[in-house]
C-alpha cells in the first residue's frame, strides 16, 4: 500500500515534470526541500505532497506568468548538513526560483547561510521559536506569541490555572518557548514557586518519575496545568503515564504545541481525550475553504489522510508566493520579497492571512480539545488575528530588536536602542 502511494507520488512528480516540459519551453522551478527518509520523514513527507498538490492545482489553472510550474524534489534525509548541501544544489544546479521546505529549527539554521549567500527564497511552514527574521525566508508557521502565549491566556482566564508545569524536550524550541512563558507568567504575577520547568531528551519513554512529580506539584490545592512542548514520539508514553497515574484532563489539563491531527492519527487517543492543543488551524474548523481543501487533499493523497497546521501554513505560503509573483510580474527574488510584504491570502479557517513587514504572518489562534476520533474540538479562539512576533518582548536579549524589511530600516534584527542592524549576511 505504501509502495503504491510512493508510486503515485512519483508518478505525479514525473507527470508534472513531463507536462511542464511539453507545454512550455521555460518553466518556473519550485524546490521542495523536505526529508523523505530518516526520522523527520513522518512529518515532512506530508508537506512535500502538499506542495506537489498545490503546484498541480496551479498548473491546472494555467500556471504562473504564462509558464508552467515545475517541482524539483530533493531528499535531505533528516540530515542537517545535507539540508545545506541540497539547498546549494537546488539554487545553483537546478536554479529554482523558490524553495518550500524544512521542518526542524536546526534544518532551517543549516539552510540559512546558504540561502542568504545565494539569495534564494525559502518558505518555512512550521511553528518555531522565533528569534529570527531573514531577508530570504518567509515564516508561515506560528511564532511563540501565536501559539504559546494565547494558550496560557486561555488557561489562566478560562480555566483559572494558578500553577504551571512547563514540560519540554531539550532543544531550542521548548527552551525558548519556556523562557518566554516563564517571563510572561512572572509578568502576570505568578510566583516563582508556582512554576515547574522540566526537560527530557528526545524520544523519552519512561515518564513515571516526572509524572509523579507533576502529580505532587498539582496536589497543592491550586488548579494546575501542563504546558507541553514535548516533541513527537515522547508524547504517547507521556499521556499514557498521565492516564495511568490517574491524572485526567479535568484535573490537570495538558496543552501541547506539537501534537496535531497527523500525530494523533496513529495513536490510541483514549488517554488523550480532553487534553488541549494550540494551533492556528484545525481540520475540524468549519469553513467552506477548509472543506474544499480537505476534499482536494483526500483526493490527492488518500481518503484516510488528515490535514494539519503546517499544511495550512504551506497552503498560505504557496498562495502568497504565487500572488506576489503575479504582482511583481517576475520571479526575481528581491522584487518578489518586496512584493510579498502586505500580500493577503485566505487562510483555511475562513479568515485572511497577511504577510507582515517582519516576514511573519498574522494568524488567528485556536485552542482545541482532543476528541476520541483524533480530531480537535475548538473551545476558544482569539478575537482577531495575532501578528507574528519575530523577536519576543519577554527575552532580555531580544526585547529591543525589531524586524522590518521595508525602507528605511530594511533589517531583520534592528536594535531600536542602538539603532544598529547587526548580523546580516548579504
Amino acid at each position, binding site marked *: 500500500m505504501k509502495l503504491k502511494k*510512493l508510486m503515485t507520488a512519483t508518478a505525479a512528480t514525473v507527470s508534472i515534470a513531463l507536462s511542464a516540459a511539453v507545454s512550455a519551453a521555460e518553466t518556473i522551478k519550485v524546490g521542495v526541500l523536505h526529508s523523505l527518509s530518516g526520522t523527520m520523514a513522518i512529518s515532512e513527507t506530508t508537506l512535500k505532497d502538499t506542495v506537489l498538490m498545490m503546484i498541480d492545482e496551479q498548473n491546472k489553472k494555467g500556471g504562473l506568468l504564462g509558464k508552467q510550474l515545475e517541482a524539483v524534489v530533493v*531528499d535531505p534525509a533528516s540530515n*542537517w548538513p545535507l539540508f545545506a548541501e541540497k539547498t546549494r544544489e537546488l539554487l545553483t544546479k537546478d536554479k529554482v526560483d523558490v524553495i518550500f521546505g524544512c521542518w*526542524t529549527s536546526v534544518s532551517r539554521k543549516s539552510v540559512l547561510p546558504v540561502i542568504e549567500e545565494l539569495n534564494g527564497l525559502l518558505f518555512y511552514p512550521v511553528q518555531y521559536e522565533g528569534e*529570527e527574521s531573514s531577508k530570504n525566508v518567509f515564516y508561515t508557521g506560528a511564532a511563540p506569541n501565536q501559539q504559546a502565549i494565547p494558550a496560557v491566556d486561555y488557561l489562566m482566564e478560562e480555566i483559572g490555572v494558578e500553577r504551571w508545569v512547563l514540560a519540554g524536550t531539550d532543544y*531550542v524550541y521548548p527552551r525558548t518557548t519556556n523562557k518566554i512563558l516563564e517571563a510572561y507568567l512572572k509578568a502576570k504575577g505568578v510566583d516563582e514557586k508556582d512554576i515547574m520547568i522540566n526537560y527530557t531528551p528526545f524520544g523519552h519513554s519512561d515518564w513515571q518519575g516526572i509524572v509523579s512529580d507533576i502529580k505532587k506539584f498539582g496536589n497543592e490545592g491550586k488548579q494546575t496545568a501542563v504546558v507541553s512542548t514535548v516533541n513527537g514520539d515522547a508524547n504517547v508514553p507521556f499521556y499514557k503515564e498521565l492516564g495511568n497515574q490517574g491524572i485526567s484532563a479535568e484535573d490537570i489539563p495538558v496543552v501541547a504545541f506539537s501534537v496535531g491531527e497527523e500525530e494523533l492519527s496513529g495513536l490510541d487517543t483514549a488517554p488523550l481525550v480532553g487534553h488541549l492543543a494550540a494551533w492556528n488551524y484545525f481540520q475540524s474548523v468549519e469553513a467552506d475553504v477548509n472543506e474544499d481543501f480537505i476534499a482536494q487533499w483526500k483526493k490527492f493523497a488518500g481518503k484516510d489522510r488528515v490535514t494539519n497546521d503546517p499544511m495550512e501554513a504551506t497552503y498560505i505560503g504557496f498562495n502568497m508566493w504565487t500572488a506576489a509573483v503575479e504582482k511583481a510580474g517576475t520571479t526575481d527574488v528581491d522584487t518578489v520579497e518586496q512584493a510579498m510584504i502586505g500580500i493577503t491570502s485566505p487562510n483555511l479557517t475562513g479568515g485572511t492571512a497577511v504577510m507582515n513587514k517582519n516576514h511573519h504572518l498574522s494568524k488567528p489562534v485556536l485552542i482545541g480539545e482532543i476528541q476520541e476520533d483524533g480530531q480537535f474540538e475548538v473551545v476558544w479562539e482569539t478575537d482577531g488575528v495575532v501578528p507574528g512576533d519575530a523577536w519576543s518582548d519577554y527575552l*532580555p*536579549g531580544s526585547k529591543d530588536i525589531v524586524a522590518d524589511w521595508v525602507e528605511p530600516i530594511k533589517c531583520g534584527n534592528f536594535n531600536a536602542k*542602538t539603532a544598529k542592524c547587526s*548580523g546580516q549576511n548579504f
Partner: protein
Amino acid sequence: MAASFISSLLTTDTSRREGLLSSRGGNLFLIILFSVTVLASIGNQLFPPGSPLHVDTYTITLLGKYLSYALLAMAVDIVWGYCGILSLGHGAFFALGGYGMGMYLMRQIGDRGVYGDPVLPDFMVFLNWSELPWFWQGFDSFPFAMLMVLLIPGLLAFVFGWLAFRSRVTGVYLSIMTQALTYALMLAFFRNEMGFGGNNGLTDFKDILGYDLQNDNTRVSLFIITACVLGGVYLLSQFILSSKFGRVIEAVRDAENRVRFVGFKTENYKVWLFVYSAIIAAIAGALYVPQVGIINPGEFAPLNSIEVVVWVAVGGRGLLYGAVLGALLVNFAKTQFTGILPEAWLFALGALFVGVTIFLPRGIVGLLSSWKKSNGGNA
C-alpha cells in the same frame, strides 16, 4: 576506468604486505588525488560558469566533504584494518574535532551575530547566559583552537584506550564500549546546559582566518587543504605502519597473546595507535565543519560511526586507499540513491553491510586484486 587502473597497479601485489610497502596502489591513489584536486580547482577558478569545463562550487564543496569522510575512514582503517580494534565510536572523535573548529568559527562571528553581542554566540544570549563559559575561552585564537582540536579527542582516546587496553578489554566488548561512549557524548551534547548549542549545534559561520567562508576562493582553498591533509596523512600513516611499530601493530592484530609473550607491551602500542587514529578523525571533523557549515550532536550518533566502518569494509580494510575508495564510493552512491529512491537507501545500505561481510571480506580492493591475480595467472 578507475577500477581497472587500480587493478592494473595491483598486478604484482600478491601479498598485502608488499602492496603496503612498495605500494603501487598507494602511489596511484596519490596521483589520482593530486590530479582531481588540481583539475577541480582549475575548473572552478579559471573557467567561467557555463563553460563545459567549469566545476561549480557545489561540486567543490561536495568533493571537500567526501575527502573529509575519506580521512575519517582512513582513521578507522588504521585501528581496525591494521590492529583489529573495531571502533564503533570514531564519530565521537570526528565530532569533537568538528566542535573544536566550530567553536573557533563561532567566536569569529564576533558582533555580527543576530543579537550583536561582541563576545557571546547567539545561542548563549538566547539562553540568557551572561558570560562565556570557561571552556569557550581561548577559542577565538586559531592556533589554540587547532591545538584543542588535536588535544581533546587525543586525550579522550588516550584515557579511554589506556583504561580499556590495560584491562584487556578487546573484541566485541571494546566495540560496544566505544559505541556507548559516542552515545553518551551524543546525549550530553544534546543538552542545552552543556553550552554547545544543544540540538541546533553551531552554525551560521562567517569567516575563517579572516577569509569569507562563502567566497569561492575560500571554498576551493579548503578543498585543496583537505586533499593535501588526506595525502599527507596517507604518507605519514604509510610510514608509521611500515615501520617497526607498524609491524608490531599488525602482529598484535593477528596474535596479540604471542606478541605479548614475546615481551612487547601490546597495550602501549594499541593506545598510541588509537590516539593517532582519533587525532586523524578529529582533523577530519575540523576540515568537515567549515565546508558543510554546521556541526550538531547528530554527528555523534552511533549509526554514523557504524556507517564509517562499512565504508572501510566496502573499500577493503587493511589498505589505506581501500578505506578512501570505500568512503568515496558509498557516499557517492548515497547521494545518487537518496536522490532517486529515498526509501530504498536503507535497504541498499543494509544489504551492503550483509553482502560485504559475507561475500567480500576484503572489500572491493581485495576483490580486484584476487580477480587480477587469477587473470594474471591465466595470461
